[in-house]
Every structure is written in structure tokens, then in C-alpha cells.
């Protein structure tokens, strides 16, 4: 059942800059949806319009069956987690947590009970008397989460809540948010530029670029069936490789006359020039000169990653990355042949960049 619906929601600033061009999105009750995109893509603006912190200049927002487009944040019943925590600096953790309860007139006896409850759930009980500035970044963000949780809002909005934290803290807090969301079944809209974070947390991912939604889908769908080159490159670490080729009846033919692939695995009958997309994990690196298919390239960089390696190679100006086992080593400058796995091949239109 749709709980939050955005219909052609747009934002144009007073100076004429368009931050969001008409976004349509339907979020089910209890769903965890992640807005993903590079900085400036309009994801934060969209989130802030849902919160009411930013006024939509077009379209409508429906929350739990009610149009809220022009309502102030206080009448939308949402919890918001800010990137920079936004804790009240002069109030103790206890008073910060009690603030939303005090605002809606919860009697102090019940306030105390609920503060203790939520503090225990979030693991900040021993910090209740501290001031925000005495806490680490991770703990401040925990308190901020607890504050967004305590009033039991119907919608959780999170603006890059993990963005400023250390890698280790980020991982553990991310898992924690996930668990809290599952436990309380709070519908959640979460903004990030980090695709790994998006993949770990989301039920569905919304990829945005230049103020528009480019694709909506489960993490698997976004990763395996990107609808455009942009999504294919943005999602995945590193993103998809792109190789210009010509599709013939015999297979995928490269500019130098070699074949990238003999038989066609892709799901289209279009013949002619295409862009072949292959994820790094679907590129095999071979040193066997007799290999008939594949792209000839020179190794330019070998990035050790512990459990694997990222091998960067150059094929006449075309830069490609292959993800290979950590034990497989190639010297810089070595000639290699990159052979794509048929299963991993995606085709894109060379002009529009859309998936074929």
C-alpha cells in the first residue's frame, strides 16, 4: 500500500536554478527507500521537500492519504536525521531526546520513561547527562537517530546520516539503522551518495541525476539491469566498463577487427554500433596471446584490495578495470587480453546511453 506519494514534485529556486524537475515516486508502508546520486543531483532537495523544510514549487506530496504539499514540517509527523546531527548544543542528551516530547506536551513523567527507553534501544544510556560536544561523531548521530525515533513518527527521513563518520563507525551505525527500521517498520527515505551504503540498506534504490530520477528498483535490479549508462557507471565500485563495438550477426566486433564476443548473449536484435557494458567482475584477464576474442590492453595500475585486486588497463585510450583474485598478479606495462563473460554483457545505445 502506498504510504508516501510524490507526483511531479519540482523545485525551482528564486534565482531560476532548477534543483528538481518533476519527480514521481511511490513508497510503500514500512519500506526502506534510498535516494542515491552524485552531489547536486537533487536528492537532498527532494528529501527536504518531503519533510517540508523546502517548499515544492510544483507537483504534490501525499503522505498517508493526505496531501501535505503546503503543510509545515510540524504537521507532517516525520522524523529527520541531519547530516551534521543538528543536536541542540546547550541541552544534554536527555533534554535533546525529550525535546520532541516536550514540544507536543507529553507529561514529564512519561517523557522520562520514553527517553530511557529510546536511549537504551540506541545504546546511549550512559551518555544521557553529557552535552553533544562531549560525544564522538558516531554517538552524536546515534542520539540524533534516537531523537527522530522517540516521537514514533510515521516517516523517517535521513540526509546522509553516515556521511561524516569514519569507515568503521559508518558500517556499524548503518547496520544499526537497518535493524531499527526493520524492528519499528518505519517507512524510511534515506539519502546518500555512497552506492555501497545504498545497496546494503535499501529495499528499493532511487538513482537520481541532474534533478531527475533515472531508475527505481531493488539493489539487485539496479546493479544487474541498469537502464542507462549513467546508472551502470554510478552503481558498482568501481562502475561498469564501457566498450564501443559493432553488433553483427557473428557477435560483437571491435574497432581493430577483433571480436569481443563470438555469439550474442544480449537480449536484443539491434545490429550496428553499440556500447558494450561489462562490470569489472565479469572481465577475465588473460595473458594467453592466442586468445581469439577479447580486448587487447596494457596494464597501467594494479590496486590491491585485500580479498581481490582491481587491475586497470588501457586499450588505445580506453580505460578498463577488471576485478581479479588477489593472488593473480600482472606486471605494469604487461600486455593482457580482457575477455568479458557472456553473462555479464549489457548493451547500450551509443547516442542516448539507454540500455538496449
Amino acid at each position, binding site marked *: 500500500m502506498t504510504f508516501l506519494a510524490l507526483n511531479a514534485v519540482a523545485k525551482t529556486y528564486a534565482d531560476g536554478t532548477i534543483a528538481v524537475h518533476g519527480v514521481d515516486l511511490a513508497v510503500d508502508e514500512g519500506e526502506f527507500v534510498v535516494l542515491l546520486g*552524485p*552531489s547536486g543531483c537533487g536528492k537532498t532537495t527532494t528529501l527536504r521537500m518531503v519533510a517540508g523544510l523546502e517548499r515544492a514549487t510544483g507537483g504534490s506530496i501525499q503522505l498517508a492519504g493526505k496531501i501535505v504539499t503546503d503543510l509545515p514540517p510540524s504537521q507532517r509527523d516525520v522524523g529527520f536525521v541531519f547530516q551534521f546531527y543538528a543536536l541542540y548544543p546547550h541541552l544534554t542528551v536527555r533534554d535533546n531526546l525529550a525535546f520532541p516530547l516536550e514540544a507536543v506536551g507529553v507529561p514529564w513523567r512519561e517523557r522520562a520513561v520514553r527517553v530511557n527507553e529510546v536511549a537504551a534501544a540506541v545504546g546511549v544510556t550512559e551518555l544521557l547527562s553529557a552535552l553533544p560536544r562531549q560525544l564522538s*561523531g558516531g554517538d552524536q548521530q546515534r542520539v540524533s537517530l534516537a531523537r527522530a525515533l522517540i516521537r514514533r513518527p510515521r516517516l523517517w527521513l535521513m540526509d546522509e546520516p553516515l556521511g561524516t563518520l569514519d569507515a568503521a563507525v559508518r*558500517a556499524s551505525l548503518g547496520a544499526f539503522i537497518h535493524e531499527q527500521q526493520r524492528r519499528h517498520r518505519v517507512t524510511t527515505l534515506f539519502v546518500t*551518495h555512497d*552506492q555501497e551504503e545504498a545497496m546494503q540498506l535499501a529495499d528499493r534504490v532511487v538513482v537520481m541525476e541532474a534533478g531527475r530520477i533515472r531508475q527505481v528498483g531493488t539493489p539487485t535490479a539496479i546493479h544487474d539491469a541498469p537502464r542507462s549508462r549513467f546508472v551502470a557507471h554510478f552503481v558498482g565500485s568501481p562502475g561498469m566498463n564501457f566498450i564501443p563495438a559493432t553488433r553483427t550477426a557473428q557477435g560483437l566486433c571491435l574497432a581493430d577487427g577483433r571480436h569481443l564476443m563470438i555469439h550474442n548473449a544480449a537480449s536484443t536484435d539491434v545490429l550496428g554500433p553499440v556500447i558494450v557494458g561489462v562490470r569489472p567482475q565479469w572481465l577475465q584477464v588473460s595473458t594467453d596471446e592466442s586468445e581469439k576474442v577479447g580486448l587487447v590492453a596494457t596494464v597501467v*595500475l594494479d*590496486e*590491491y*584490495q585485500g580479498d581481490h585486486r582491481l587491475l586497470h588497463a588501457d586499450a588505445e585510450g580506453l580505460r578498463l578495470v577488471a576485478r581479479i583474485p588477489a593472488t593473480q598478479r600482472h606486471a605494469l606495462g604487461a600486455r593482457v587480453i580482457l575477455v568479458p563473460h557472456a553473462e555479464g554483457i549489457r548493451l547500450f545505445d551509443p547516442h542516448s546511453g539507454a540500455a538496449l
Partner: protein
Amino acid sequence: MSDAVQSPVLVLGGVRVEFGRKSVLAGLDLTVGANELLIVLGATGAGKTTLLRTIAGLQTPIAGTVAIAGVDMTHAPPGLRDVALVFQNFSLYPGWSVRRNLAFPLRAPGRQLSDDVIDERVTWAARLLHIEGLLDKPAERLSGGQMQRVAIGRALVRRPRIFLFDEPLTNLDAKLREELRVELALLRRQLGIPMIYVTHDRSEALALADRIAVLAGGVIAQIGSSESVWNTPVTAAVAALLGRS
């Protein structure tokens, strides 16, 4: 690469730094070789930034020595050390063009470089960092990634003896971080200048490092190649820093 460093450029011996009663560096020894890229890993508050500041001369140790290129520099001011520091929060002069921002360190008093030399250096750095097209743009109109390139370029033009990086990519988008990491790796092969690079990103650490030094308890708890630190972390804490829990 073993612990015996060939032709060391930087040697720290028994360096101690304290803030009030708190000991941050407790007799730290470290040797960095010519052309080496050393990653410094450590938990928040382990003293990574203090270590860089001590090398740069922004922090004077209460004991121990800092030697650069064989000369004792323990008490030398930053200006004499010929090291460049790139911060997490890149600050450019707004209103100035990229070109002027890049040339600024070369126009410092006492540097007496001719305009031709300055021009040549700026162009060289811009080409290495792929920002030739931006040279005449005002700094405030750049994107985050472009700004950080210019900030690195500003350190580059001086051709310092040592590069110090303090989480230079942390404030960038994840995707951009990935791209700049690759560019830094390619760049540093062309430069041949030793780099000390502080980060908490394990991909960055593993991918860039010739050696990884793990800072804990005010000393180097472990030092070795990416492979050796990854495969045989000396403590659980080191394993956790590399995301192996």
C-alpha cells in the same frame, strides 16, 4: 619491501608529543624511503594528524628527532622543511582564478622564480591533474572534486621533498573518491616524491600503499606491505581498521 628502508628521506626517532597530560605520540620511530608512499592507518584520535603536523613542523615534539634528507629538522620552522601538506578541507582563495591559486606558493617571498618558470610549473601541475581547462575559472565556481585537484596542485607546484596528505578525499562523493584515488596512484608514479598519506578508508589504504603503518597507542604498532598487513594483522584492532572483522 622490508623494514630496512633504502635511502631514507624522512627519519623520526623516539618522537614524543603530549597535549597537557595526554601523550599522543609516545616515542614513535618511523623511516620513509625515497619514492615511497606510506599509508598511516589509525582509529580516530590515534594521533595521525599530529604525526603529520610534527613532520611538517607545525607541532614541536618534546623529545625525539625529525630528520629530513639526513638533516636534523626537529626545531626547524615549517618554511625550511620543504614539505607540502594537503588537508581534508581544501581551502582555495575565492575570487582568484585556478591559475593564480596554483601560482601562489611559487610567489612566496624568498622564492624569486621568474614568471616563465612559474608559468611552466603551473601548466605542468595542471596537466598532471587534468585541470588545464579550468586554469582561468574562478576557484569558487569549481566542483568539490575539481577543488581538491587544485588543492593538490598547489602542493605539487612547489615540488616539495615530501608530500603529506591528511584524508584528502574524505569530503568527496564516494564515486569521485574512487576516481581520484586511481589518479593519485598514477600521478605519484610520475612524480617520484615520497608521500605520507593518512586515511581511514581501507580501499584507499590498500590500493595506494607501498607500506601501511598502523598507529596505535602513540607508536607504530605494525608496518609492512598492504599484503602483509592484510594477511597477518598483529592485533584484532588492526584487522578491524582494514575492515576484517
